[in-house]
């Protein structure tokens, strides 16, 4: 029965095969039906196929009906007792609120840091220790800030959690990039993401960094890449990136905290120290080793956002790639993402993810308060 259809038949064969199921149900137009019928007359294989489909249909039709195990009548109690279906949305709303708060706080954080940098009253500014690494705390912000901001000195060990931030305050001038280069080349430390697990973005050194170039150009590259990617990874698609105070270049999106599960709160504001001669070599080491490199999916997610902010510099493109290659610069691998953001996951993870984001928002808020308090106290 299985004769290979002749060449002339193959197209008709495929045509018929695709339609046999609908043919069975009488769901073909007269024309389709005629063509299928003609083919069936000539093709024993298709006749066998049709027969087996019909057989399958017959078995399905003979499938026994199950008795209903109980009545599903809707009782008043069902409506009052909030079933999970109802409870979740409410919970979700609360979560969304917290997520929005987190995003807002992230923006405030950037403003605070930027303000500090701009004002330039950093007690610590003078002492520039070997900038261990650039700490970019906030990934997204880093992009925006980094472009313009001059890397000042930042040396804290990347653990933001420890809240060492007071020291960190780097004076980076956001607005005028040109000026900045003059300032101390040390890496700026971004405070942004202090959240315990995820938020801290390890600084990733772009390939460019290793070469200490006095010139500006290198900087942009550094900053943008690492940050974006990580931030993204953690958060789902829309990562609200807190924008630094009007950086010219930065296309960075305003932080949108979306209610949607997708809404990400990026805690990390990264201020990348632009590449100064001194700094460049070290940065790689700085980041915390603990974190696993982002999973491919994360990277994908992250990648998208990174692109957007960068547009200004050419090099940025290269940078993007960096995070993916763990080997580069050594620094790259240690990206700190909190719990590795689950790839787009079923709702269960969703929820966990959103809770993590909300928690992060709370921690961020605490961080901001701590910074403000330290500033006040310091003065």
């Amino acid at each position, binding site marked *: 029965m299985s004769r290979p259809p002749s060449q002339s038949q193959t197209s008709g064969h495929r045509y018929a095969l*695709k*339609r*046999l*199921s*609908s043919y069975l*149900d009488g*769901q073909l137009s007269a024309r389709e039906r005629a063509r299928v019928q003609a083919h069936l007359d000539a093709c024993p294989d298709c006749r066998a196929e049709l*027969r*087996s*489909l*019909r*057989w*399958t*249909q*017959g*078995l*399905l*039709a*003979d*499938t*026994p*009906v*199950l*008795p*209903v*195990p*109980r*009545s*599903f*009548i*809707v009782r*008043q109690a*069902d*409506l009052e007792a909030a*079933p999970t*279906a109802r409870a979740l949305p409410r919970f979700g709303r609360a979560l969304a609120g917290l997520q929005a708060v987190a995003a807002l706080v992230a923006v405030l954080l950037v403003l605070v840091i930027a303000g500090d940098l701009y004002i330039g009253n950093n007690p610590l500014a003078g002492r520039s220790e070997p900038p261990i690494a650039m700490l970019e705390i906030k990934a997204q912000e880093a992009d925006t800030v980094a472009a313009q901001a001059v890397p000042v000195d930042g040396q804290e060990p990347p653990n933001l959690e420890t809240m060492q931030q007071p020291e960190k305050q780097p004076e980076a001038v956001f607005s005028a990039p040109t000026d900045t280069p003059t300032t101390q080349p040390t890496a700026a430390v971004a405070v942004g993401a202090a959240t315990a697990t995820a938020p801290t973005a390890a600084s990733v050194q772009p390939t460019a960094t290793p070469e200490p170039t006095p010139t500006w150009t290198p900087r942009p590259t550094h900053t943008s890449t690492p940050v974006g990617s990580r931030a993204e990874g953690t958060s789902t698609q829309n990562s609200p990136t807190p924008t630094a105070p009007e950086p010219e270049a930065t296309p960075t999106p305003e932080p949108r905290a979306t209610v949607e599960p997708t809404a990400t709160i990026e805690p990390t504001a990264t201020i990348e120290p632009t590449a100064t001669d001194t700094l460049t070599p070290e940065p790689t080491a700085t980041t915390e080793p603990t974190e696993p490199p982002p999973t491919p999916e994360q990277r994908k997610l992250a990648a998208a956002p990174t692109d957007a902010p960068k547009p200004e510099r050419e090099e940025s493109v290269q940078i993007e790639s960096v995070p993916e290659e763990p080997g580069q610069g050594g620094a790259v691998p240690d990206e700190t993402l909190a719990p590795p953001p689950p790839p787009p996951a*079923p*709702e*269960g*993870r969703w929820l966990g993810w959103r809770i993590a984001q909300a928690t992060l928002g709370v921690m961020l808020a605490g961080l901001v308060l701590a910074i403000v308090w330290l500033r006040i106290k310091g003065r």
Partner: protein
Amino acid sequence: MTKNGFRQIHPDSSTNASNDAPVDASNDESALIAAAQHGDREAFNQLVVHYQSLAYNVAYRVLGDGAAAADATQDAFISAYRAIPRFRGGSFKAWIMRIVTNACYDQLRVKQRRPTTSLDADPDLERQEWNVDPGERPEAYVVRQELGAIIQRGLATLPTEQRACVILSDIQGMSYDEIAETMDSSLGTVKSRLNRGRRKLRDYLTQHGELLPARYRLYDETAGAGGLAHLFALWEVDGALIVLRRGVDRYE
């Protein structure tokens, strides 16, 4: 072979005697819907009684698990009660089944999170649950049980949408239009899902043909023309051809 809606409503499926009356005419149904839209829970529950067997059976076939199917069905009707003021006409059956299938997808997601149960039906469970048709002879009943268990395993091999399409179409006998509405997809999508789903299920059933009760086998290598006749019997009016089947069985 009944192709219209669900085939049986169990008289004892409702605990509320007053709700036993089936909803026959579409007029009654639209009246009930209108009342339910104004918050008449009793009216809504008459619709529940009418559709719960269909809903539960679809959920069971999609999920392969009685408890999850019951949860999905209950969730679906509660959701439907809340949503019915927004029902804008069209096929109520498709509307309600859409809610049911969505509830099933939710259950599947829960299941993916905690993959402790498999989609395969528990044969013991099935044996207990199968409905006993009063008119059905005991042997036939057993045979159908086996068939149901194997079909369930085959369905579990299909992607969710294909599975739902096959169930709605070939087990529940819903029309293409209703299925398209239920699944919020185009007719073309329904056709192609059905085509792929049936073929895949066919592959499973032929590969596991030895598990099928003899009277359901495609063609036995030994059966020859008898097998074809048997097929024919399955496809056509089965009542008239039971005799033929018996003959085939004997022949085999």
